[in-house]
């Protein structure tokens, strides 16, 4: 009798734990910074990919529009995966894409752009990768959404997918 009760209680506790943990798994808390904590974009100078001129961050983000900063490299495989989505985002006129070419050689990057298309309104060279650090990036690819007030309102770590694109479109409406 006592044994049966023990088994019953154990069973109930175990199923409870299982359900909770299972539910916990289904809303995995992937790290996305809260939108309420808006971070200012860093102030920096960078070299333009094509013109080779040094431009300041004020100049780059001067228009009253949403910006996307995308960190990419020709050697980065996931970047190829997300590239068509960036091309798709570029069709949207209320947003400008800035590419941050991360630790790359000019020729390889050029080839990449020629082959897959150029979604960026401007590409900046980040030869030694310090610009990425300024933005608080963890690696490549990474994508930041910047609002009209020049605040970073969303950050995507890793390649963006269709869901992320939809989210961006929703946020810039």
């Amino acid at each position, binding site marked *: 009798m006592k044994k049966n009760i023990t088994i019953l209680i154990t069973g109930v506790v175990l199923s409870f734990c299982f359900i909770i943990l299972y539910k916990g798994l289904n809303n995995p*808390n992937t790290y996305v910074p809260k939108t309420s904590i808006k971070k200012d974009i860093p102030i920096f100078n960078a070299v333009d990919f094509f013109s080779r001129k040094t431009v300041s961050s004020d100049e780059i983000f001067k228009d009253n529009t949403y910006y996307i900063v995308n960190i990419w490299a020709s050697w980065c495989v996931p970047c190829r995966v997300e590239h068509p989505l960036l091309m798709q985002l570029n069709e949207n006129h209320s947003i400008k894409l800035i590419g941050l070419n991360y630790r790359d050689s000019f020729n390889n990057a050029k080839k990449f752009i020629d082959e897959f298309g150029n979604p960026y309104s401007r590409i900046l060279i980040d030869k030694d990768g310090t610009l990425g650090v300024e933005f608080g990036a963890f690696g490549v690819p990474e994508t930041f959404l910047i609002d009209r007030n020049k605040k970073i309102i969303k950050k995507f770590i890793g390649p963006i997918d269709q869901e992320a694109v939809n989210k961006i479109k929703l946020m810039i409406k």
Partner: protein
Amino acid sequence: MLANQIGYYSLILGLLFSFLLCTIAIQDFNKVNKKLNANIIILTFLQLTFVIVSFFSLILSFINSDFSNETVFNNSHTTKPLFYKISGTWGNHEGSLLLWLLVLTLFIFLFLLKSNSQPKKYRILTLLFQQIIIIGFFLFVLTTSNPFNYLFPIPKEGLGLNPILQDPALAIHPPILYLGYVGASIIFSASLAAVAQNYISKEWAQHIKKWVLISWIFLSLGIMLGSIWAYYELGWGGFWFWDPVENVSLMPWLSLTALLHCIAVLERRATLTSWVVVLSITTFTLSMCGTFLVRSGLLNSVHTFANDPARGIFILIFLFVLIILSLGVFFIFHKDNNGNQNNFFWLSRETSILINNWFMMYFLSVVLIGTVYPIFLDVISSEKISVGPPFYHKLIAPFLIPFLLFMALGPRLKWIKSKIEKKYSIFIIFIISIILTFFIIKNLTTNILFYTLLLSVAFFLFFTTLKELLTKKLNNSSQTIAHFGFSLLILSILFNGILSSEVITNMKIGEKFKFGKEEIFFKKIEERRESNFNSIVAFFEIKDLEGNVVELEPEIRVYNQPLMVTSEADIKTTLLEDKFIVMNLVKGNEYFNVRYQSKPFMVWIWISVFLLGLGGTIALFKTRI
């Protein structure tokens, strides 16, 4: 490329060997012959070999920076030093699972090799239970976390290893910790087999004891290595943060420690059998639980490699299958020779062990609740809370007082029945401890009553074990050394907590800052280049009243692959105290944020854990292997 193929197919072969082993073992189970079918040992050896081959081919891919392998691509880079290329093998999800498999198969092979004198059926059942775990992990690796995924087109460069993992202590932390974690698997399998065969007895206790010890030693050292790493790499100046990830390694340790003491009782008195079985199950379940919580992404930490829900669900289901299986075996087969427990005389060694086991179970539940409650609350009410150190300190520290007292008295009692003899010496030591504590505490304005009590019992344990070490013949040296180590651990943690001081300030080059009796001088900075990072090294001088100067050189490193800025603390260790300094950049400013700490008796925390391990090792060599 070739290494990839070899590694992958070795894994599949290893899995096939599991099925083959199970079939042969089941056939052999009912045969009358007394000896184990020799083929079984050969097959386990072959299985082990295949896993080793697979593991080494992954290492080879890492050494050669073969980026056609996805795991290598994600976790390595050509500019990494060779040492970190190799340690990168197990510094990621896929590789670490391969390490799990390696240890699982290694332990079952060693177990079969070393258990010749045990009954055949018991050995076969142990093998079968272990193979269930092994099959589960093979399937997990092959279906959700294959370390040999092929990438095309082949990237020219990898993404790099997380810089904070590029550290010598952390490079060996996973293998050591895994030996402890996974070592618990063999205890789990063996105790289930013993329950099913109704073989929980004195003989079994003597035989399983060495496995418990091995697992316990490695787990202790593994936890310590993680803690050392957190101390100097995370730059927070503490060694234990009650972070969920640390807690999940502490929980199996607590239950394993309790198990170790139960086995000691079982060895002599053939009692506490339910304790032994339940603790064996608990230990391994907690190890698995830890793996689940850490790897599934339910807990966010440096250990969370990927948030792939499929992986989480696989481990979750597998974990519950194992729990249900083990509890099923326990409820069906276990015959409790009850009544025996009630025969404990109130003043005996086993009673004190039993009492302290209850205390350990209490500590375990505190840690468990503190760890999982936030997760449960998040799921049920989506409210996010975090449980911090005060919770653990408040709930654990008061109960350390009786715990330490029993730890000091217990070993001085006899088994079965002890008399209250006129042992003046123990009484004198107790008085000395109280007086000593009083004089130390007097000068400190803290919670006097509480600290006096806690420090007195800690000193009491310290002096009784010290006296034992100095005077007695060394017949129970392992236990005495381990208990001595533990008292030293508690003492150094307490003094470290009470006497630590810290200052956080902004300084620029050439500036001086007065802090208590010391003066901090920021001399200069220097830039350095390494293959995997660039760094800014700062030079500080700490001068005390007598004019002694200590130089400290903290660093800020900018790692290139992947890009990350880390602060490297500089620590000068002496026997009496650690001086710890760490700095951070202040954006757009000539100032650096400097944090200086003096932490007394830091090194004794590590030494005492070594003593614990040493005690365990001596016990291991004394058991007949």
